[in-house]
Structures are given as structure tokens and as C-alpha cells.
């Protein structure tokens, strides 16, 4: 009950946000929401199914590129592209997943990274279609979305719906089967869980929502570029998951918020130090390493421990 009230309060604050803070923070919160969808979707695999994917950026990027290419090259309405983006991402995830789920955890991690880098190199080198290194600029978006506040509300609504759907999924018998696979593969198999089948479905669902997050990101920059598929992008949701807490449904969303804020703060910090480039991955990598040794369950785990101690 208390949880429900807390959640309601959070949503209320998010709805009221544009009235309270300047436009810059509205945009920042939009990015946080996008990141939250990306991270929670990745955690469906990592936290619930025990499948660690180092290549989720591929589906994020495919979502973004599908939307951009459909709207710019094919010329379909934005809404059609937006609906198609996660579906195409899910299709790719299903194809890649078909190969990856045949393998044990280590091979799975390697292969997801490998396929993601493959897709990245295709996007990077297929200049005539994807614009190569430069990406695609000036993606036409509906007039209403040019206004940061309107787009914020659209993103907020989409985020709430997608998180709701994902919550339903992890609370369903299917979600519990995934947990069973994570905790004891052999036993799950003895109980009649078809491992590959379930993992493939999980991978496809995660791909769908990662693609959705990618599509959501397009109007933020009105451009897409190959870095959306790069391996360091895949590290971002993992970072958010580790930070927020792997065993809590909303943990990665909290991690995502901290991630975006930290990124903002760090770039300002380096700038103050007088450095020209921004050294962001090193911060991310260090935090990952520190978290692994000190807080393997993330902030949510820390909270739980504090509560237990009381």
C-alpha cells in the first residue's frame, strides 16, 4: 500500500514537473525516462532471466534508425514509424536471440556483443542508406513534439505504459519461469520449462522495449548516429542496473536517473578542471568496478540492508 502511494506521488511530481522547473530540466527528465525504459528492459534479461547481454544498444539503435529511416527515406507518417520501430527491433532481437540462447552465459555475453558490433559496423559503413559516421540529421517530427513540454508528456505516458506492461510480464507465470531459469537452469528444465524457448521470448521482449526506447530518443536530438549502437551504449543500462539494484523492478529506473544526472555533472566537472575532452567512460567504468565490490545489489540492496538492520 505504502508503495502504491509512493508510486502515485512520484507520478504526480513527474506530471507537475514542467510547471515547476526550467525547460532544461524537463528535457533532462525526458532523457531519464527514455533511459529508464532502456534499463528496465535490459534488466528483464539481466535481473530476471540471468542472461547478461552486452549488446542491447543494437536494439536501441535499430529502433532509432528504423524510425528515422522510415520517416525520412520512405516518408511514412511519424506515428507509423514509431509503431514500427520497436517491432523491427524485436524482429532483429528474435533473429540474434535464436542463435544466442543456445549457449551458456559466457558465450551468450560474447555473442550479444559480437552481433551488436556487427550491426554497428554495418550502420557505420553503409553510408548510402544510414549516412555512416554522420548519421541522419533533421528527422522530421510532428510539430507538437518540437515543444519540449509536449514531448515530455508523450514520453512520460509511453514510459508509464511500457513499465506497466513489463511489470505485468515479470509478475506473470512467464516471469516466474524466467526467475527459475536464472536461479537453477537444470531444475527449471526438469520442471518442464523449455529454456531456449523462454529465453528467446525474453530476449525478443527486451529487444522490443529497447527499440521503443531508441525510438523515443529520436525526437530528443532530431537525429540518429551510429554511436547509438556502439558497445559503450550497451554499458549504460548495465551501469544503471548495477547502480539502482538488480533485484528491484524499478531499481534500474532509479539508476537511470542517477546516470543521466551524473553524466551532466561530470561533463561540467571536467570542463571546470579545464580539460577539453570529456572523460565519461572512465567514471562509468570505475563506478561499475566499485559497485561490484561494495554494493553488488545496488542502491535498492543497500536500502533493504538498512531496513533489515533497524
Amino acid at each position, binding site marked *: 500500500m505504502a508503495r502504491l502511494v509512493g508510486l502515485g506521488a512520484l507520478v504526480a511530481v513527474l506530471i507537475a514537473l514542467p510547471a515547476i522547473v526550467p525547460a532544461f530540466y524537463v528535457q533532462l527528465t525526458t532523457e531519464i525516462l527514455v533511459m529508464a525504459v532502456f534499463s528496465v528492459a535490459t534488466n528483464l534479461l539481466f535481473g530476471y532471466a540471468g542472461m547478461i547481454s552486452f549488446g542491447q544498444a543494437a536494439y536501441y539503435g535499430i529502433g532509432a534508425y528504423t524510425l528515422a529511416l522510415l520517416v525520412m527515406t520512405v516518408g511514412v507518417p511519424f506515428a507509423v514509424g514509431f509503431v514500427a520501430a520497436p517491432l523491427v527491433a524485436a524482429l532483429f532481437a528474435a533473429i540474434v536471440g535464436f542463435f544466442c540462447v543456445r549457449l551458456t552465459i559466457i*558465450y551468450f555475453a*560474447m555473442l550479444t556483443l*559480437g552481433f551488436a558490433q556487427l550491426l554497428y559496423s554495418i550502420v557505420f559503413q553503409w553510408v548510402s542508406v544510414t549516412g555512416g559516421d554522420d548519421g541522419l540529421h533533421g528527422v522530421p517530427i510532428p510539430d507538437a513534439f518540437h515543444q519540449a513540454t509536449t514531448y515530455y508528456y508523450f514520453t512520460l505516458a509511453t514510459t508509464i505504459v511500457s513499465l506497466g506492461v513489463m511489470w505485468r510480464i515479470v509478475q506473470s507465470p512467464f516471469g516466474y519461469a524466467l526467475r527459475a531459469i536464472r536461479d537453477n*537452469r537444470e531444475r527449471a528444465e526438469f520442471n518442464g520449462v523449455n529454456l531456449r524457448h523462454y529465453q528467446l521470448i525474453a530476449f525478443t521482449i527486451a529487444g522490443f522495449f529497447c527499440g521503443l526506447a531508441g525510438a523515443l530518443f529520436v525526437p530528443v536530438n532530431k537525429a540518429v548516429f551510429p554511436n547509438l549502437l556502439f558497445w559503450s551504449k550497451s554499458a549504460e543500462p548495465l551501469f544503471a542496473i548495477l547502480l539502482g539494484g538488480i533485484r528491484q523492478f524499478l531499481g534500474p529506473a532509479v539508476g537511470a536517473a542517477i546516470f543521466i544526472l551524473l553524466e551532466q555533472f561530470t561533463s561540467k566537472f571536467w570542463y571546470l578542471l579545464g580539460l577539453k575532452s570529456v572523460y565519461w567512460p*572512465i567514471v562509468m*567504468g570505475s563506478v*561499475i568496478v566499485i559497485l561490484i565490490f561494495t554494493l553488488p545489489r545496488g542502491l535498492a540492496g543497500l536500502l533493504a540492508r538498512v531496513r533489515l538492520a533497524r
Partner: protein
Amino acid sequence: MILFLLASGLTLIFGALRVLNFAHGSFYMISAYLSYAVVSTLGESSVASFWVALVVAPIAIGILGGLVELAFFRRIYARELEYQLLLTYGLVLIFSDVVRFIWGEDYRSVSRPAILGGRALIAGKPVPVYIIFLIVVAGLIGAGLWLLLYRTKLGRTIRAVVYDRHMVAALGINVPRMYSLVFALGCWLAGLAGGLMAPMGSITLGMDVEIIVECFVVVVVGGMGSILGALLGALLIGEIYAFGILIVPRFALAALFFVMTVVLIVRPWGLLGKPEKERA
């Protein structure tokens, strides 16, 4: 052949420690930059600088690897696989930024020593001497590794650790020290590959992940934990990649993945690997 050196290091570490090291490519990259640093400090013109770099850089990387093992890996062998993978991933992020911080984003290159600079005629076709040199070095290293693993006491111990670490520990052998040693050896191989690669092309940021992906393909095709598999995989992948570039230049990488998926479907544990025991 460079792939073989890298893949054998990776597969050695994996075989003995059961840790898949994403940072392997980072060690390779750092070594290439280090040899650049050594060569530019000693002066491009000096004949010895390349050789000094080739000796110094891999050793430095081996030491670095050993330290990393002591500081980080040693604490997490008992933890879930996910965390081990994430740790190496975090290290990749850190190393890539450290390199960017020290050497910047420009391309670097090391010139080949004069003695290896020319071309030799083999069966009527000119072949760069450096390539021949590489093949010879890799062959020597491969033979050396085999001798080390199968003909010395140390090698026997390493293989015993791979087989059953608890039994080996019970026999009074310092298993953690063996781990550090094997890890350092694997890193030394990565460092050697980096040093040898330096005069071949440009040294860039991002070569770490580029190579690790190819390395994974090699190891997957050849079989995890098998040195001979690494050799076979490297030869196969190298050839396919070279022909792929000739035929469909843009999608040569896709050809590699095609081969890999075929191998995985037919023999999921690789051509020369053994079926994996689930989380032994």
C-alpha cells in the same frame, strides 16, 4: 597470426581461470600505444627502438595484468559469472579512457625496422618481410606455449588446475599464485600481439573492442580453452576475412559471423573444444 597470439592468451586465461576477459583487447591496445611511446622516446631512427619496444611493452603488460588480477579478479572468482563479466567490462571502459587521456585521439603509427621493411620473393611473388617475421614469431610462440604446457612441470600444474582446482590446492600447490601467473602470461601474449601489431597499421582508440570481437569469433570457432583450436580458428577466420574483403569489402565482418553461427549450430563448443560443463 596476431589474432592467434591474442586468442591463445584469451583462451589460456579462460581455460585456467574460467573468466572471460573482455579487457583482453584493452591490454593489446595499451601495448601498441606503449610501443609507440617507447619508439618515439628512443627516436624513430634508432635501429634498436623497435626491438626494445617489442620486449618492454609485453612485459609491462604482463605485469599490469598480474596486478589487475591481484587487485580485482582474485576477489571475485567465487561470485556469480555476471559480476565477473561486468568487472572486465568496467575495466574496458576505464582502460580506453586512460589511453585517450594519455595519448589523445589522434592516430599513431610506428615504422617498421629497416631490416624487416623490404619484400622477399617467395615462389615468385613479393611478400613483405614483416609478414614472414610475424608468422615465424607466432609459430615460435605457439611452439613455446605447447612446450610450456605439455613438457614442463609448470605446464602440468597449470593443466591440473584447469582440471580440478580443489584437488590441486589439496596437494599443496598455491593455486592463487598459479592464477596470477597464468593471467600475467595471457596478458603478456596480448601485449606481444599489440607490440607486433604496432608497425602494421595505425594505432587507434577503439582497436580494443574491434579486436576483442574478432578474438571472440576465433575462440568460439576454435573452441574455448584449446590453444590448438585458437590456431585453427585464427587461420580460418583470417582467411575468410581476407577473402571477404576481396569479394564484399563492406560486409566482410558479416561473413565471419556467418561462419561462426554455422559452427555454433553444428558444434556449439567449437571445432576443437570440449562440451562445456555447466558451471562446474
